[in-house]
Each structure stands twice: as structure tokens, then as C-alpha cells.
């Protein structure tokens, strides 16, 4: 069965510092990986995805993520955090060739960026 783990319920970062939100996955085949962000009382917004090719993918709002097959990880990173980055972040996976592409989500990580 596919699964996604986000080991940290909360990440606290000072504004201007780099941030990392961790994600590991478990699938029986080749994964497609995603990061979504959820602001309070709003739906999920797509940030970035890894499908194939370069292991480092760049997304919206200056975020990037690195696919590491050997460590089965897809950590989200940003070089310099903003207070406005404070939100709930979800990592998700679907299986290549999976009919329909349903997403399996991690439990979410609350990012708090303080001034």
C-alpha cells in the first residue's frame, strides 16, 4: 500500500532563515510526488510536483523540493522564509500508471514563520 509520512507536526522558523518540511513515502512502484499548501479556511493550493527528470523541482512562491529515490524522500525547502509562508503543508503521492491518479496525503505539517 502507498503511504506518506510527514514526521513533524510543526516546524518553527524565523523569518529570513531557510526552511525544510520533511516528507518520506512508501510505494510499490515509481511515484509521482506533490506538495500542497493550505491557508486557514481555504482549499489546498498546488505548490510543485515531481514527475520525472531533474530531481530538484521548483514551484510557486520560491519553494523547491528534491526527490531522493534512495532515501524515498521529497523534502520541501525554501532558502528564505517569509511570515506569509505560515500555513499547513501537505505532501502527497500517486503511483505512475495508477488509474485516475488519486492522491495519498501525509498528515500535514504546520509551518510557523515568526518575524
Amino acid at each position: 500500500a502507498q503511504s506518506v509520512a510527514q514526521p513533524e507536526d510543526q516546524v518553527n522558523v524565523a523569518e529570513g532563515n531557510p526552511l525544510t518540511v520533511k516528507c518520506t513515502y512508501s510505494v510499490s512502484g515509481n511515484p509521482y510526488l506533490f506538495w500542497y499548501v493550505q491557508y486557514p479556511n481555504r482549499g489546498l493550493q498546488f505548490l510543485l510536483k515531481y514527475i520525472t527528470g531533474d530531481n530538484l523541482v521548483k514551484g510557486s512562491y520560491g519553494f523547491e523540493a528534491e526527490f531522493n529515490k534512495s532515501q524515498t524522500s521529497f523534502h520541501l525547502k525554501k532558502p528564505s522564509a517569509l511570515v506569509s509562508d505560515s500555513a499547513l503543508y501537505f505532501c502527497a503521492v500517486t503511483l505512475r500508471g495508477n488509474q485516475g491518479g488519486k492522491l495519498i496525503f501525509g498528515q500535514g505539517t504546520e509551518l510557523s514563520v515568526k518575524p
Partner: protein
Amino acid sequence: GAGVSQSPSNKVTEKGKDVELRCDPISGHTALYWYRQSLGQGLEFLIYFQGNSAPDKSGLPSDRFSAERTGGSVSTLTIQRTQQEDSAVYLCASSLDSATYEQYFGPGTRLTVT
């Protein structure tokens, strides 16, 4: 352009009543998904539509839950005889097609069963 819309935004219902939740996907998106977000269970897949067909219903938690899609557009999720454990935010998402994988989410319907 317009995003995914859902109605109502909030729904409070009594235990045992039926409810209908509506989703309007982005125009031209052939794939549509329903998910449920709750404190205890996180984000869970419920059902997937390609056009008007539902090839994957594996996430529906019981036979009280059903969904349909008409005209390759609007979808309705129906919960019969609601229970308190059905309280959650129900999210709808659409994508250009199932091979695109990038899904766009609506704002959700918050369902509270009293």
C-alpha cells in the same frame, strides 16, 4: 479563470438526515475527485470520476455515501442517514485529465452533524 467551486460552504445537519454536497469543476477538466479532511483521519480520497464514470470508488467509507457526475461537469456527493463521524470538510478537486495528475482544489464544504 474560475476555479473549482463547492456549495454549500457550510452545512449543519441533524444525525440521520441526508445531505447533498455540490462541486463545480474547472471548465474542461475531465477528471474530478472527492476527498475528506478530518482531524482524526487527515486527508482521505473518496471517489474519482473520469467524465461521468467512476472507475475508483475505493475510498467511500460506507454504502451511505454515493456520488454522481452529470454532463462531464457538476458532481454531487450524497451522504444518507448522516452520523456524527461524517463531520468533516469535504474537498473536491479537478484536473485536466487523469494523466495530468495536477489537481486543483475547491474551498471545501464543512459538514457538521449534530
